[in-house]
């Protein structure tokens, strides 16, 4: 409210002066139906209305949510709608620990060398249009996927990335599908979770594999209206095979501007804010104690990194990277700039990954300064600190960068100057790739439950992101571990490798992890059952009117 009051006061002051002048001159929750418990401000659960209570409440009234991006990007999007809407369901989803869990496939196994994967499908499931779900449907979805890759604003659908070296897909009976791969893929089920195995009723596909109208899925809701860029409406599917939703209709409005979105909630125009960046930390802090609203904090797969140019002085010296990591007080950053919505990050992999291995978060300013002094001495050092605009709009990067700038510039006995520059992500990446930078704050999500591509991209010599971010990181042992992981068929060995890579990252710092993001969403107390879940995925089956 302070900001708004100040705004009004300023306006009144301006008006007066001009007029006078004129006179004189938690933990992640499975987003699948029935699996989630509704949340409250502190991330704990609060029950949806009980049977007798909900019977008295009119749940046919439309509930309106606002999001920064289109929840139904439409026919040209690989999935048409965000998975969180519950319109479609995948073969495999995630459990609370991020591991693959049954959805439309109830069980799966693979042969010894992981080249043949067999999926047993759920029986008795029908699509919203009444078509039964079976193996033929799954095969038709693979036929469609082969026409891709298909673009998406959520996760691209690329059969070569999700099912690398897929030789064949066939059914052995109406409810069993067998996938055969060129080479063993021991973590294939991790790659397939959620968006990796989305299933639609094939009649909703156009000839080119895009959608020819609304999507038809097996989920608890169906799309009934979609105006691109403005809003979409979903309605409860009464023939849903699982626990049906409580509220009948939801409308998801697109409101890109964070301030307008927040005002829409306060004005009662929308009942909730959802998806990535639903509400800023400062806005959430404003309404957290207000009984008219509920703020829910959940886990997020996003990690904030301080990327460094490891190919150039001074960050080509590991002591400089270690020193900076020790110098930064992560908890201060979280408390001061993120209103407490974050967790101090010690390691490379997000804590929501099933392969997460906890690395201790160390803060020792004196030791950090000593290490930095050892590297730079008293010579003048000018550092370029880049802030990509796209992330700086969503996160308090300017304040965070100024804090780090102050830390570096105030190390006694050194002459460090930090020049902060904000720019569009495109030019920023060009500068990073060309090595014309020293520091850059940037987020990184978990593209898949299988972290192999993350390790390879960031840590392997010549890895895609290692090169494009100009990290300049090279470690022969890391390269050998990643190459071994690429060929390994033993899941236990893979876990060992991923753990070792995390330990190396926490000592070598190819980039410096700062904090693990927390997903913050908010809703009016008029509704209940809404909570933040991993990466903005929010289930709506439990969301309903509270009064």
């Amino acid at each position, binding site marked *: 409210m302070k900001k*708004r009051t100040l*705004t*009004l006061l300023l*306006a009144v002051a*301006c*008006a007066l002066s*001009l*007029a006078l*002048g*004129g*006179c004189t001159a938690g933990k992640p929750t499975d987003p699948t139906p029935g699996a989630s418990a509704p949340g409250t401000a502190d991330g704990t659960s609060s029950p949806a209305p009980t049977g007798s209570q909900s019977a008295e409440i009119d749940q046919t009234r439309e509930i309106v949510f606002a999001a920064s991006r289109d929840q139904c*990007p439409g026919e*040209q999007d690989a999935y048409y709608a965000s998975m969180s809407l519950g319109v479609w369901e995948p073969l495999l989803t995630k459990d609370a620990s991020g591991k693959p869990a049954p959805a439309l496939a109830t069980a799966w196994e693979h042969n010894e060398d992981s080249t043949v994967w067999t999926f047993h499908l759920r029986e008795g499931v029908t699509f919203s249009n009444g078509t039964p779900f079976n193996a033929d449907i799954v095969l038709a979805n693979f036929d469609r996927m082969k026409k*891709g*890759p298909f*673009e*998406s*604003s959520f*996760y*691209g*659908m*690329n059969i070569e*990335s*999700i099912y690398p070296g897929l030789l064949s897909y066939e059914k052995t009976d109406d409810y069993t599908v067998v996938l055969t791969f060129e080479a063993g893929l021991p973590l294939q089920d991790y790659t397939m979770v959620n968006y990796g195995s989305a299933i639609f009723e094939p009649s909703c596909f156009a000839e080119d594999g895009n959608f020819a109208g609304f999507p038809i899925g097996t989920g608890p809701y169906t799309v009934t209206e979609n105006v*691109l*860029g*403005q*809003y979409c409406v979903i309605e409860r599917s009464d023939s849903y095979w699982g626990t049906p939703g409580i509220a009948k209709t939801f409308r998801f*409005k*697109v*409101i*890109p*501007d964070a*301030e*307008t979105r927040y*005002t*829409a909630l*306060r*004005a*009662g*125009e929308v009942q909730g804010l959802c998806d990535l960046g639903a509400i800023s930390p400062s806005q959430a802090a404003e309404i957290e104690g207000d009984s008219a609203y509920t703020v829910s904090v959940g886990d997020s797969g996003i990690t904030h990194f301080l990327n460094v140019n490891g190919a150039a002085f001074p960050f080509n010296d590991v002591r400089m990277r270690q020193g900076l990591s020790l110098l930064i007080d992560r908890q201060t950053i979280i408390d001061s700039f993120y209103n407490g919505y974050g967790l101090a990050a010690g390691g490379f992999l997000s804590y929501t990954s099933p392969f997460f291995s906890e690395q201790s978060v160390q803060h020792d300013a004196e030791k950090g300064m000593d290490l930095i002094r050892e590297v730079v001495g008293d010579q003048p050092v000018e550092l370029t600190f880049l802030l990509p*605009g*796209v992330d700086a709009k969503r996160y308090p990067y300017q304040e965070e960068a100024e804090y780090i700038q102050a830390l570096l510039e105030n190390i006694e006995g050194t002459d460090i100057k930090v020049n902060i520059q904000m720019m*569009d*992500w*495109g*030019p920023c*990446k*060009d*500068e990073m790739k060309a090595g014309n930078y020293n520091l850059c704050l940037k987020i990184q999500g978990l*593209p898949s439950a299988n972290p192999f*591509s*993350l390790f*390879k*991209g960031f840590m392997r010599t010549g*890895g*895609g*992101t290692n*090169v*494009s971010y100009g990290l300049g990181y090279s470690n022969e042992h890391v390269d050998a571990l990643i190459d071994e992981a690429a060929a390994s068929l033993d899941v236990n060995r893979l876990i060992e490798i991923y753990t070792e890579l995390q330990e190396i990252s926490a000592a070598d710092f190819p980039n410096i992890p700062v904090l693990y993001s927390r997903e913050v969403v908010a809703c009016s107390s008029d509704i209940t059952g809404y909570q933040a879940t991993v990466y903005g995925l929010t289930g709506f089956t439990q969301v309903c009117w509270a009064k």
Partner: protein
Amino acid sequence: MMAIVKYIAKRLLVLIPVLLGITLAAFLLGRIAPGDPVDDALFRIGIEFPTEGDRAEMRARLGLDQPLPAQYFSWLGRALQGDLGRSYIGNRDIAQELARRLPLTLKVSLSALAVAVLFGVGGGVVMAACHGTWVDTVLKSVSTLLLSIPGFWLALFLITVFAEWLGWLPTSGLDRGLASMILPAAALAAANVGSTSRITRGNILAELGEQYIVVANAKGLPQKAVMIGHAFRNSLVPIITLIGNYFGGILGGSTIIESIFAIPGLGSYVLSAIQNRDYPVIQGYVLITGTTFVLITLAIDLLYIAVNPKIRVQGGAA
């Protein structure tokens, strides 16, 4: 009449080199600006950590491996046939997307134009009529205020007051008909209301000092007839220019206002295209908005002739 037709034909012919110039400028600016659409395009098809091979393949797929002149003429050739191509990000038909978004921008622009004309010109006339009184002083102060306030700030202020506090109008979107238009139109028109009202006032006052006004007054014409029929009409040319240019400008979409009020019009489309270096979208946008702007300028010139016959006699149309 023939002279006017010839004049229009001549202006339309001039449109061709103008459009070629602005599309070439947009093309070159896009290519010179740092940034590359390839990684974003790869990300959207599920390749988050691309190799150089992936990048080269995508570059070829988007036609970005071709020499710049080949890229430009290839685009121009298709554009002349009405095909603006598909966006790099989202793979949508650009012409269809522009056609889908144009009516939304048009709605807001026309509403803003109506506000600008009504309050800008109306306010200017009132100020001139009440010249030297407290009404004039107050309105002058208001117009200065409107000119001084940044549009985005005013937009947020209006949303806070009229949507959050009073609950009279929606914060955003277009799903409540006319009510949805009021705040965006007001925010978009505010600065123009300020400038138009001041110019209208100044021009009318200047005209009121002319000899023909003295003659009209001497003839005993009513004050209202002198003000509206003579002074106001003769002061219209610069006002039309100002409002016409303003309308041409906002027809391209106001990125800030569209973003704040969640209006998926042309402004938000091109802003996203610029951020993603989606070159075909930027070029298509420039072509369409450039054409529109030139046509509006032509319409303004024709309006001059209608409101001031002296221009027909002295100007190029005769």
